[in-house]
């Protein structure tokens, strides 16, 4: 394997992790808002119980992605930085509002509603904004003027594929978080929250899949190279659909002890579903980072730096494993935390 391919695989893996964690994080924030006031307060507090200790860790993975991108592919920064200034800049503002208001809402009961609503809504907008970056890389939205890349905002904002990408991002966020919270509620022995989230996951799942397939049909003419590559990569996408079918149907089987749905297995299969889809999409995107102006290889750093960074990731992640295990036990397994009133 070429070095730059290893680098892009690592980068893509962080994107996968962040897209999963971010979906849970933003989605849980949204559900906490929706169920905050009414009779579903259990559903809201379950979402908050997951969110409180995890959002910081999730946020770090966003920074990890950016730093990995810049350090493995420094020659991509000038094009990406220029193109993404506005979408990412706006995303940062929303992210900041969301994060701080969410945290603050725990410390000021009096203003909780205002803070929670703001953070819930921004939590819905952020993935939309982040996902809207994907079509930019497909071709047709970038022109080079006087040697500098410019983003065609008018074309981007009037293109159906942008909105299909956004719809896909939001439905993914809501589906993944609802499914995960179904399992989390079961772990916490909270039946009412379990029922609430299972219901949401059941209608959101097929909808998300439908939107994903439709998104491919809205790809602009300039992205025909990607569509062709997708067709050559059907194995990955086929696997993804099969895994979804298994994971989704697991929600309906009764367990031996009479409980409805193998939720933990369902979550696992759906994560694998996304894994296959994301890697298949990533390999269809090769060799371009931004079509047709920038390839992965052209953005790649020198080999000295690459190997030092590689060692850095191996050492860093292995040091963190025990911390993550402790974290998992305390917040995702410990009944004293999960079932507190």
């Amino acid at each position, binding site marked *: 394997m070429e070095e730059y391919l290893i680098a892009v695989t690592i980068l893509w893996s962080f994107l996968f992790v962040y897209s999963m964690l971010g979906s849970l994080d933003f989605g849980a924030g949204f559900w906490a808002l929706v169920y905050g006031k009414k009779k579903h307060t259990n559903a809201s507090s379950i979402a908050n119980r997951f969110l*409180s*200790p995890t959002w*910081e*860790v999730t*946020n*770090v993975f*966003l*920074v990890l992605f*950016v*730093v*990995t*991108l*810049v*350090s*493995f*592919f*420094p*020659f991509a*920064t*000038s*094009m*990406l*930085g*220029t193109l*993404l*200034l*506005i979408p*990412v*800049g706006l995303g*940062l*503002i929303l*992210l*900041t*509002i969301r*994060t*701080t208001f969410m*945290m*603050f809402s725990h*410390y*000021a009961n009096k203003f909780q509603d205002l803070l929670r609503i703001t953070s819930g809504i921004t939590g819905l907008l952020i993935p939309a904004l982040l996902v809207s970056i994907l079509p930019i890389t497909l071709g047709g939205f970038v022109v080079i003027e006087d040697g*500098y890349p410019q983003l065609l905002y008018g074309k981007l904002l009037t293109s159906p594929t942008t909105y299909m990408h956004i719809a896909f991002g939001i439905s993914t966020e809501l589906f993944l978080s609802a499914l995960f919270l179904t399992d989390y509620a079961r772990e916490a022995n909270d039946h009412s929250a379990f029922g609430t989230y299972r219901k949401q996951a059941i209608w959101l799942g097929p909808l998300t899949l439908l939107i994903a397939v439709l998104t491919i049909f809205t790809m602009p003419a300039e992205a025909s190279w990607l569509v062709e590559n997708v067709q050559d990569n059907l194995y990955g996408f086929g696997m993804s659909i099969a895994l979804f079918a298994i994971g989704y149907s697991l929600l309906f089987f009764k367990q031996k002890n009479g409980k409805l749905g193998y939720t933990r297995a369902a979550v696992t299969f759906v994560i694998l579903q996304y894994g296959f889809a994301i890697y298949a999409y990533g390999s269809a995107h090769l060799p371009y980072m931004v079509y047709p102006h920038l390839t992965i290889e052209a953005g790649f*750093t*020198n080999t*000295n*730096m690459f190997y*030092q*960074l590689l060692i*850095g*990731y191996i050492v*860093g992640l292995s*040091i*963190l494993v025990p*911390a*993550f295990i*402790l*974290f998992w036990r*305390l*917040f995702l397994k*410990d009944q004293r*935390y999960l079932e507190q009133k």
Partner: protein
Amino acid sequence: MLDTVVLARALFGSSLGFHIIYATLGVGIPLMIIIAEVMYLIKKDEDYSIMAKRWTKGFAILLAVAIASGTIVGVLLSLLFPGFMEMVGQVIALPFQIEIFAFLIEAVFMSIYLYAADRLPTWLRLVSIVSVAIGAVGSAILITDAHAWMNTPAGFEMTASGEITNVDPWAAFFNPSFFITALHVSVSAYMTVAFIIASLAAARLLRKGLSNEERNYHKKSLTIGIYLGAVMSLVTAINGHETAQMLHDYNPRKLAAAEGLFETTRYAPLSVGGWTSREDQEVKYAIEIPYALSFLAGDRFDTEVKGLNEYPEELWPPLYVHTLFNVMVGIGTMLMGLAFLAIIWRWGFKKPLPGWMLALFVGGGPLAMIAIEAGWCFSCIGRQPYTIVNVLKTTDAATQSENVGLLFVLFISLYAVLLVVTAFMLIFYFKRHPVQDELAKSEV
């Protein structure tokens, strides 16, 4: 063209100026919490346990903004200075990468300490908060490493056409000013937080009608602030002296601008105060301490200190950095004096601190933060016109994108709102949960 560069600098500078407030607190408060936890273990005095809990609450509120603004700064750097990041990625990527892991350790253990402290055995609780402190100071040190490298670039060669070759990532990592600058940033953060804690405690002690329990509680907190402040300000001062020598060796242009020295001189005097006049080539209305600058730069009175006239004028940093430098050093020196005066007062006179001294301490916290801001401004503005000294000019590092103006307005408004909201949240929370309630609870 120029407008975009100026706007990019203004936006990034304001973002850093905003972030540094929260980042400094984020580095310092965990150490204060450790001290309170350890005091509680030693003295079994419930007050220290309450102290640790209340500081943790304040820390959690501040940390939300610290993390959010840190994310902003990290991402904006790539957006606004792509030319710079292109070099960073090739030469000095390691500290950025390792910083993420330090940051992860901090985030993971902060959650554990915050949401699981009551379920942990004492030793694991201590391990958690110590990990938070190490993660926090580790992040600061690693990011400072990149800053140090910008001042004293190392670990690569550049061809005539501007291509970077022979990259040695670890030589870049351990660039000449790394250790001195990293120490400077960490101890000055500890110093600042110590004075802020002392400032809060002193403000409470000046109020009338405190119960004895409350008075004792705030006195303990003041004592921690004074002692830590004294030690850290002393270390900062000694280290500041080394920093000046490092400038003398590696970036004399910056030292000359800091001191408003135009002609290369032996037995150079140190100018305190005043402002640098470009026309008259001197610092006006300054107090001059004979030979002091030469001594500062090389530990000898006859050290030759380079003046600005050694360099073409377009390579001079803005001359007002002299004032920034004075603000930083002046405040640092005064605070060190104040802390030691307080210690001598208590030991010598065996008396509680008088009201006037408490009033000085109230002002000490905000002043320390101003010194931090002045220090960062001095270091970054004093490096101009370069982003990477003698390697990359700021005009070549900045983005070419239009629209920076729009973002500038949005971000500045965001920072203004957040400053007000965080202050409001802290006041609101601690008003609702006054310390006397917790003290009363522990009595029962």
